[in-house]
């Protein structure tokens, strides 16, 4: 394999990874604070993608409006599901929350297919050629995608590290008992959490819709790599989630050069296993102390 192919594969991995970093961050935040793996994450993305399509159709073609609309929509649904489902399950085992989130995933997706059907949609955007630097190809669209993802990530990191709500959020993520003992009111944190998680899934879905095609299974299919990336980075660690999913995506793309596309899932899974065996807390997670 020549280095140009590898460089292109790495670039592609970075783009996909950055895109998936948004929902991956949602997964890791929900995991750290609400304490369960949210299987509805993928279908929130799907919802975001379809909202983009719908808003382009009904409100006109502006892509920025459509993407913002998608984020609002998924944030609203995410909050709705929190108030209806996940809040009531706060005291229950994380498996029951996981199962409920699978239910939410099915409900969201089937509502979409009821109205939009099974067929594919494409986001209405002009096709552009890639810039070619001696064989290394970079797409302007990809740059926009990475840019949008970066801005969103920066915003959330700022909130998390600079505002009181963000500090409370991290405190709860670190140790729910301690946070409860020191009297942190969780309500506002939870609302913020689910709104951000929803909006990020929506943004991720919309960007993915722009890059690929919009299908009902769009987000659901990505759950597995996203969870793998989150675990790789260390469950509950926001920085870890971003770096984990980017690493994971690069590994998948580069692997498909060497082992063939079918085995990239297998290979990614093996990488994950090895990392976990050598460093059970993930790349950026802290060791869990038993008491």
């Amino acid at each position, binding site marked *: 394999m020549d280095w140009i192919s590898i460089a292109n594969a790495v670039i592609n991995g970075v783009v996909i990874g950055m895109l998936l970093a948004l929902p991956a961050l949602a997964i890791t935040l929900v995991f750290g604070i609400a304490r369960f793996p949210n299987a509805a994450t993928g279908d929130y993305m799907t919802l975001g993608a379809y909202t983009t399509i719908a808003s382009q159709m009904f409100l006109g073609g502006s892509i920025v409006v459509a993407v913002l609309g998608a984020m609002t929509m998924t944030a609203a649904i995410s909050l709705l599901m929190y108030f209806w489902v996940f809040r009531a399950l706060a005291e229950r085992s994380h498996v029951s929350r996981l199962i409920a989130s699978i239910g939410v995933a099915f409900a969201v997706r089937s509502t979409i297919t009821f109205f939009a059907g099974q067929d594919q949609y494409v986001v209405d955007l002009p096709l552009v050629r890639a810039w070619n630097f001696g064989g290394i190809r970079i797409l302007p669209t990809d740059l926009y995608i990475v840019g949008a993802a970066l801005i969103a990530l920066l915003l959330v990191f700022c909130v998390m590290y600079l505002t009181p709500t963000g500090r409370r959020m991290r405190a709860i993520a670190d140790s729910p008992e301690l946070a409860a003992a020191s009297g942190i009111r969780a309500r506002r944190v939870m609302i913020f959490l689910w709104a951000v998680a929803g909006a990020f899934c929506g943004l991720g879905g919309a960007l993915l819709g722009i890059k690929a095609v919009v299908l009902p299974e769009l987000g659901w299919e990505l759950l597995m790599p996203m969870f793998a990336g989150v675990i790789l980075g260390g469950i509950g660690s926001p920085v870890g989630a971003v770096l984990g999913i980017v690493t994971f995506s690069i590994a998948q793309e580069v692997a498909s050069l060497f082992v063939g596309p079918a085995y990239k899932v297998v290979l990614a899974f093996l990488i994950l296993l090895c990392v976990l065996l050598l460093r059970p807390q993930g790349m950026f997670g*802290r060791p869990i*102390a*038993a*008491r």
Partner: protein
Amino acid sequence: MALLSITDITARFGGFRALDYVSLEVGEGELVGLIGTNGAGKSTLFSVATGYIPAGSGSVVFQGENITEVPVHQRVRRGLARTFQVPREFSHMTVFDNLMVGARDQRGEKLGALVFARGAIRQEEERLAERVREVMAFLNLARVSDELAGKLSGGQKKLLEIGRLLMLEPKCILLDEPFAGVNPVLIEQLCDRIVELNRRGIAVLIIEHNLAELARIVPRLYAMDRGRVIASGTPDAVLADPGVREAYMGGVI
């Protein structure tokens, strides 16, 4: 030679040094107390001694064998058992079943035996049930035999945990705050049972905040503060130690 000797143990969490070269000994059939303020490292020391937390350095020697690297369940099988600060009963199981689980090396835990040695298992179960009844009688738990363990009072749960340890036939037990959250009447009874156990030849190391009760039953005491052992000896001597008084901020004792 001591039954359990802990030598120069360290443990860290992140940058925080929870145990700082701690050494401690429990002799054969001895009854020893361990006191210290919150965060002094007592429970951490238990966890290192029983293998729940790896030791950063130092050694744990039990019955003359170095068990520093031995996994938790192997240490228990050698006769070194512990209870927890917060009782860890099997809440969805009856008190009777909780105690039945306790017995070591049951044939019925082997899947092959379930098929090929059903008679032997039945006999073993009957024998164990007999022992469970003895233990329940000893700990005054017979009345609640068929209750779900999760429904017991705090004190009963502590008794149940001790009962499970007895099913193990251990040589040395480490009790982590056995009196915490227990009503005074039951504390009497608990003390009594612990002393009785010790009289039967089981070495006991107790962490306890209730210094008055502890001083009454243990002949020897260790005091810890900020990850170090700061004093040891008879209860009177330890409690009189200026470092200990300092750690407890004078007034409490």
